[in-house]
């Protein structure tokens, strides 16, 4: 049980690192948002679940699962809000963007 929790924590930390790497390296806000919203629910969510499994108490596992549910519900909303705000305030997308369906009306 402890080994499984360790593995889950390690996978979560790796996902968080990859998300942050995407935030650092991707060319514009919209692609960076794509990377950042994976680091949240997947990376940190897995870390939370692993930490909850380490405790071995059902009540704490339940609480952590509720936290994970909250992350999964809320992270896309936050990413969408920020992308919409960036689009409306006129942040340009990368020059390598081939299709932009928001040029005329947003």
């Amino acid at each position, binding site marked *: 049980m*402890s*080994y499984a929790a*360790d*593995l889950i*924590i*390690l996978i*979560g*930390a*790796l996902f*968080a*690192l990859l*998300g*942050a*790497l995407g*935030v*650092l390296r991707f060319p514009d*806000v919209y692609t*960076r*948002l794509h990377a*950042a919203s994976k*680091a*949240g629910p997947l*990376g*940190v969510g897995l*870390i*939370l679940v*692993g*930490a*909850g499994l*380490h*405790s071995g*108490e059902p009540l*704490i596992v339940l*609480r*952590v699962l*509720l*936290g994970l549910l*909250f*992350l999964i519900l*809320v*992270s896309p*909303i*936050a990413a969408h*809000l*920020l992308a*919409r*705000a*960036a689009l*409306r*305030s*006129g*942040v340009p997308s990368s020059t390598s963007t081939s299709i932009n369906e928001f040029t005329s009306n947003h």
Partner: protein
Amino acid sequence: MTDLVLDGAYVLLAVAMLMAVIRVLRGPTLADRILGLDLATTLAVGLIAIFAVTVRQWLYLDIAIALALVGFVASAAFARYLISQRHQ
């Protein structure tokens, strides 16, 4: 075994936090900085969760979940600010 994994996870999250801070400092637009701050808050949630395992105090998990709640409100408020800024 667990200690080794926890140390590794600390290092991974610290590097990720550093990347988020670099994005906040460098980020060409305000939206990039808001995104970096949001990511830093999320990573702090993960760090607190790992710390809870280190010290075996499971109350810290509640603190991590509460920080996730506050972080969502913060980034939503920042996004509203970004929209309202355009009209001035």
